[in-house]
């Protein structure tokens, strides 16, 4: 038994190290003086300076943040209200709608890209922020909807009945009891949505317009076209931001509790 436990630690350690190799290399090479990543030209801040001077990246970052904000907002509204509405009445129509709403998560992203490219040109919607928000909302709604629904199913309904029984109006019950109970679930749905939206290349490429560039799309095009050392510097910033967000998320309990069950 002893030996087995040691083997498992070695295995986990090795896989974790492999997982972090490219991340560490990215950080290291962001300080590389040389333009070519195969040559170490000494320590330098210059790519960071170049990064800050690059207006395109700043614009793309701003676009990505605006996009993530709006689609998270829409997703949390649609997903949470849907989960609340479907909680009480379980009929076939609700089942069909909830299945349909999950489709964007269950098919390869590329299909969604084609779907929206086709649909938006059919509707004559100009490609830009609006189309991006709609497409991103489509794959963010399922995250919020699924997690909040699971939380509602796992939660003790009598607490709400007790509040009603004690004289609270339905509105009051919602704000005093239901909302605090589903808040962590909705928050982790929003976090997942944010990460998904902020990370998306495939769908964005198809529905973005010439004037609006998101950060991942910009990174992708630059990586495709050639050597781009300032991408390493940008990566370090994104990594740091990710670490901070994970820290906040685990502090408010939105990560690692898996939708949560009651007591």
């Amino acid at each position: 038994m002893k030996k087995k436990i040691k083997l498992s630690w070695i295995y986990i350690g090795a896989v974790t190290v492999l997982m972090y190799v490219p991340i560490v290399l990215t950080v290291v090479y962001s300080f590389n003086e040389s333009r070519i990543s195969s040559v170490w030209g000494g320590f330098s801040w210059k790519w960071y300076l170049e990064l800050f001077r690059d207006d395109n990246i700043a614009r793309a970052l701003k676009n990505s943040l605006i996009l993530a904000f709006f689609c998270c907002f829409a997703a949390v509204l649609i997903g949470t209200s849907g989960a609340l509405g479907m909680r009480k009445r379980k009929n076939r129509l609700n089942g069909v709608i909830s299945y349909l709403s999950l489709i964007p998560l269950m098919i390869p992203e590329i299909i969604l890209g084609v779907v929206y490219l086709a649909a938006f040109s059919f509707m004559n919607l100009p490609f830009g922020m609006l189309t991006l928000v709609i497409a991103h909302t489509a794959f963010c709604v399922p995250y919020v909807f699924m997690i909040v629904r699971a939380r509602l199913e796992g939660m003790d309904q009598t607490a709400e009945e007790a509040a009603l029984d004690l004289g609270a109006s339905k509105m009051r019950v919602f704000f005093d009891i239901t909302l605090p109970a589903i808040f962590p679930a909705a928050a982790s749905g929003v976090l997942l949505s944010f990460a998904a939206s902020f990370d998306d290349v495939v769908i964005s490429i198809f529905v973005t317009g010439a004037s609006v560039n998101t950060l991942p799309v910009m990174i992708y095009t630059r990586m495709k076209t050639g050597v781009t050392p300032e991408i390493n510097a940008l990566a370090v910033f994104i990594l740091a931001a990710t670490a901070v967000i994970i820290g906040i998320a685990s502090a408010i309990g939105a990560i690692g509790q898996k939708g949560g069950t009651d007591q």
Partner: protein
Amino acid sequence: MAESRKTIWPLLLPIYLFTLVFVFAPLVYLVVLSFMTRAEVWGAVPRLTLDNYKRILEPLYLRVFAESIRLAVSSTAIILLAGYPFGYFMARMSPRWKKRMMVLLMIPFWTSTLIRLNGWIIVFRSNGVLDKFLMALGLTDRPLKLLYSYPAVLVGMVYALLPYMILSVYSSAEKMDWSLTEAARDLGAGRFQAFVTITLKHTLPGVLSGVILTFIPSMGLFFIADLLGGNKIVLVGSVIQEQLTKGRNLPFAAALSVVLFVLTSLFIALYRRIVHTGEPEGLY
């Protein structure tokens, strides 16, 4: 609790509207589009045809589908083999270590895929880190030209999707009652036998949802093939993208998407049949 229609409809309206207008209708339109004829410049004219589907049956595109499925199957297999023990061992750790491992897993999981791929480009690049490392060890005397090769794409896929498998397996192994394996061992089952009959059976839902969560995206992540495989590895995703950007053939891209959609739906139907549940486990 008695809930009146008046209070329920405002809650249901947003998800009904959004799903019908922006998910269901566009999907229907995609299917319709796949039977239309391409227009001169862009878009389609409503002349019904089966040509788009006939074209998929050309050996060129059949090969692309075969290639995509081969890559998806092999990366899923590698992810399963590498991820299962990881998730399993993690579930057996102490609560404190579980938490630490979770944070360690979360950082790559939440970091942009592109940025993590960027690291692999540094590794694989000709005369890059791996080449230097191998040359220093004397295992090879010249750059291996690993970037823009099939193995590089495979590594990229595995790397991008591994956390999904680990988390799925972990979440179902964590729910497992370990006294069951002890009982099996007590009843005379060997270590291996106990694992197969008890542990594997109980973690199967996690394994299957891990497979779903890795197999389906791997069919469509064209940018991994693009960045790590150059133009050597052509996947369905890449073809669809090409048909849209260079070929400007919307109906054909739609037909390709429909076929891909049907393939993945079959796969999900199979999963539902085995696990009797709608949604992959361990997604959150």
